[in-house]
């Protein structure tokens, strides 16, 4: 693969670049030769009908699956084949379509797990409670509360994550992802299961996150939210890119309307 050649052709400000990535499970090709770029500071939406390969795409970007072919560059570095925790440490964080918190840990602890790669205390240091581990622990607590403040959960720090109402669980997942101090945040259907009010709040939070200097990609079915926050939209269907452009362009694109049978785009 001509990795060297493609690496040089990044345009200025490209944070993430996927080239022709493909992934099949058995006979089913979930993602077929998808290419796209995400620029620093963007809010980009990926939409498409159910089964279009959006979540698989996330799994490829975060290293949970390895693409059959194609290349993924993040900040100019090839990340294909790296284990997920390394990719996270490089600056890609994600949330899950089905909330995957650590339900039996407190809200603050959930966020502190997100800070794992930003701290260093190992087995020995922690067991002996050496000064490094004490300092880190104190810092993590403070930082966790600050991160929870972003999504408005700072008062719930000591509740069990599993006991939060669903909408707050989504927000906690977002906070936990932010705690990894990402450059790129991948949100997987953050608005599903939220009511209209919570969705509006979520939109504000996404703006706030972008203003912190974090690039945001969201997979979302809620077209209201997509049209409101995103600057660029990528449309997938059956694992293939069928359109890419601004929300206005997408809204009037005949292929997109066809893919959705003209029903879901309001």
């Amino acid at each position: 693969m001509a990795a060297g050649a493609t690496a040089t052709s990044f345009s200025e400000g490209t944070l993430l670049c996927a080239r022709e990535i493909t992934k099949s499970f058995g006979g089913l090709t979930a993602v077929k030769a998808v290419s796209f770029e995400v620029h620093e500071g963007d809010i980009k939406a990926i939409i498409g009908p159910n089964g279009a390969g959006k979540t698989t795409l996330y799994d490829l970007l975060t290293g949970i699956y390895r693409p059959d072919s194609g290349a993924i560059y993040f900040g100019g570095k090839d990340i294909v084949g790296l284990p997920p925790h390394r990719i996270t440490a490089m600056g890609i964080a994600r949330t899950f379509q089905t909330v995957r918190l650590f339900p039996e840990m407190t809200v603050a602890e959930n966020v502190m797990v997100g800070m794992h790669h930003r701290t260093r205390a190992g087995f020995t240091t922690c067991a002996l409670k050496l000064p490094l581990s004490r300092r880190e622990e104190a810092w993590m607590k403070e930082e966790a509360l600050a991160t929870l403040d972003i999504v408005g959960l700072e008062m719930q720090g000591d509740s069990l994550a599993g006991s939060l109402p669903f909408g707050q669980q989504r927000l906690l997942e977002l906070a936990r992802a932010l705690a990894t101090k990402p450059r790129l945040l991948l949100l997987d259907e953050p608005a599903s299961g939220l009511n209209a009010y919570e969705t509006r709040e979520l939109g504000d939070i996404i703006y706030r996150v972008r203003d912190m200097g974090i690039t945001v990609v969201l997979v979302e079915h809620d077209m209201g939210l997509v049209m409101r926050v995103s600057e660029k939209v990528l449309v997938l269907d059956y694992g293939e890119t069928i359109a890419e452009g601004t929300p206005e362009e997408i809204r009037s694109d005949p292929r997109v309307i066809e893919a959705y049978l003209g029903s879901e785009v309001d």
Partner: protein
Amino acid sequence: MRHGRREMGEDAAAKGPRARAIEAFNLPLFLKRNALLIAFSAFIMVMPAWASPLSKPLGIPIILTMRLVGVYAIVAVGLNLLMGYAGQVSLGHGAFFGIGAYTSALLTARAGLPVWVGIPCAVLVALIFGVLLAPVLRLKGHYLAMATLAMGIVIFVFMREMTWLTGGNDGVRNIPDLALPFLKVTTTQGEFYYVWVIAIVALALCSNLVNSRVGRAMRALHQSEVAAEAMGVPVSSMKKRTFVLSAALGGLAGALFAHLQGFIDPNQFSILLSISLVTMVVIGGMESVWGSVFGAGLITFLPKLVEALPRWLGDVPDWLEKYSNYEGMVLGVIIMLTMVFMPSGITKGLVDLVRNRRSPFVNPFRRKAVD
């Protein structure tokens, strides 16, 4: 607006030595945080004073048994890190216990090394075996349980059959008593303190560990491996390290055991030992360092108690006296009842009862809509 705070790590690291000194010397805070540990240590310290006179009328050698409780507490706590916190089942931990016991026994009884060299070597050998066997952690659930059980069986068979090294079923005899450099420990009470000092240090370290970054990572990967990995926790290396740590604690406990008993043979380290260890952890309470100590105490004292009980009651029916095998029945019933009614373990159940005024008993017989 939060940008300034994001580099707090470096800020905190640069905090002056004065601030650090204050943190370190905050005595009341230290006492408060370690209240349980301090209380328990005190309890152990004064134990010989009240337990020795009590032993005879009760018919239970309390201090003698407590030495073993200390030994089992060490390995049970290690196993609890692996099973309770990190969620990885091991039904073969008796193997590490046995490896530790044989290493120290052979080094001291055969090679003539001092005991205080033998014990660290035992820890080291168990640790090496832990590293070698860690690949089984790729498996999950039942498969991991069965693979670790199989691992325990294989090591047991090798201990029995490698007669040139282990002496086979004849075992290793004349293992020297516990000792420190320049100090031989000969009395039961001395052994009791020797074991419990080590056990309490191990407990303290483990309880520090579980309340730290590492402990959080363990619990996180237990609850969702995918999410933990995605949050930057190196899941597989975390599991392996925990496994190795628990293997090393198993080796330590095994070595102490060998020196306490003075004689070991492979049948002491069969899978039944592994099962008792797991039972200690599960009955005492998963995700609870103190639960393991309690579990170790319960399982170790149970046989003695069952043996002594009829004597308290006086007249024993003839058939009961003849078949003294009902220890297994009592253990079996306790295990089954605990699993059915208090699946999170006895200590957790009791804590729940006191703290939340909630009955720790679940009613598992109630039918619910969908299974």
